């Protein structure tokens, strides 16, 4: 459902990834593993069109590089960036709704998106009216996931969701991901992580990104020192 074919990636003119190729099947949960600075974030950003790309990125058979970045989310791609990146001027619920509103969702679709987010992350309901600038870091990660759930009907990409979460919150987050898996079996998940042990229990596969290249890896065997 998503494939990179000989893709070069540059940010601000600096080449970061060289000739990477990999392919992900529908409904897979893939862990994208790599140490700090390996290029995990850059790979996800490339799917969203936030980097300069040479080569082909296919999504559902379509050449993504021909789709304007702002049009990509409405293909069903939800993305939770590394450092939350919520819009602090708006409430938690406004943040969650925004990708749907931008995509021109009907009221029924928006409600369905909200239900999905609150189903998987019930704790967000209590925060709905709170300004997004006033939630804790951990809560912010949940909101960012909720926002990705609004539009991510086909693919959801989470960039280091566990980073900086206290153990209790991390296991709560993992529980939410399992709830998502159980609820929407057809959705594809890509989760980046520098510590692969965390994802052992629910990822199907690991892709390892190292020295600008991507290769298949074993979730149990991979030891990457962060």
């Amino acid at each position, binding site marked *: 459902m998503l494939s990179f074919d000989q893709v070069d990636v540059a940010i601000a003119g600096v080449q970061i990834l060289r000739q990477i190729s990999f392919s992900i099947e529908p409904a897979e949960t893939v862990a994208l593993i790599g140490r700090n600075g390996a290029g995990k974030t850059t790979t996800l950003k490339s799917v969203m069109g936030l980097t300069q790309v040479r080569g082909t990125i296919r999504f559902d058979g379509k050449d993504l590089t021909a789709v304007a970045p702002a049009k990509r989310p409405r293909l069903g791609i939800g993305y939770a960036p590394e450092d939350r990146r919520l819009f602090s001027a708006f409430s938690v619920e406004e943040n969650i709704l925004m990708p749907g509103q931008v995509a021109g969702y009907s009221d029924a679709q928006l409600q369905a998106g909200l239900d999905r987010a609150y189903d998987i992350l019930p704790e967000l309901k209590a925060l709905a009216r709170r300004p997004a600038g006033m939630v804790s870091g951990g809560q912010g990660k949940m909101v960012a996931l909720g926002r990705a759930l609004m*539009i991510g009907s086909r693919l959801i990409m989470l960039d280091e969701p566990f980073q900086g979460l206290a153990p209790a919150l991390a296991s709560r987050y993992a529980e939410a991901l399992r709830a998502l898996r159980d609820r929407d079996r057809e959705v594809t998940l890509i989760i980046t992580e520098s510590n692969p042990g965390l994802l052992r229990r629910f990822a199907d596969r690991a892709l390892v990104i190292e020295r600008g290249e991507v290769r298949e890896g074993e979730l149990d065997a991979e030891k990457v020192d962060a």
Partner: protein
Amino acid sequence: MNAQLFALAVFDGVAYAALVFMVAVGLTLIFGVLRILNVAHGSFYAIGAYLTASIGGAIFAAGYAPWLALPLMFLAAAIVGIVLGGPIERLLLRRIYAKEDALQLLVTFAVFMILEDVQRLIWGTQPYFEATALQQLGNIEVFGVFYTTYQLVVLPLVAITVLISLRLFLRKTLSGKLILAVTEDRETATAIGIDADKVYLLTFVVGAALAGFGGALASATTSVVPGMGADMIVLSFAVVATAGLGQIEGAAIAALLIGLGRSFAVYLMPELQVLIPYLIMLLVLLVRPEGLFGVVRTRKI
């Protein structure tokens, strides 16, 4: 300074602040989103004034009803925003967002110079004066001072209405929310599907129309002459810098501060009249380099 002079200075200051605010708020809005200091904003103000004074002069001389003065001002604002602002953003500014600040400043300065010449070509150098709106509304007496209703009541009310509507537009409508989202974080806005190019265009059109509206309102109170755009842009830069770049409510307060400072100088120290706004700005920036209401920007990588 007796009570009447004091009242006069306050009234002058408030009326002037209302006009400066209309220009400064568009300037600061554009800066917040596009990260460009738009020197050509002064031309939008001047062209709004010229359009209103010249069209108004023609239609009122032809006997049309004076209440048309207000719709005419809206029309002038719309022309400035859509006919002038739209193409300037699309065809010119769009090419230079990634360039360094100095180049951007030079380009908008060039646009300003070109528009100055265009004004001379269309309207010549003779002053236009068209005060139907001001005369129609007459005078009111406050604290024993007679002052025009237009300047003392209408201008401040319009400025407050613009401030409140702009805030509501940004917070409550989807288009407004998109502007705020792009202002805060363009990359993430794109990643959730916001077309930043469209938001830039919308912001620029709205900002330019506000300046055009400011000029339209001003045209009833003063002769429209070459150079009025230059005076206004320098003054609104001072307001925007005093308030803090991108601060909308702050621009209203800074406009009031600078408007009042300027009008009191007129009565107390006329020789400092031109200087006072910049002295206020310098004082504020010495104490708070980010402006009265500005926040220090943490750079996002």
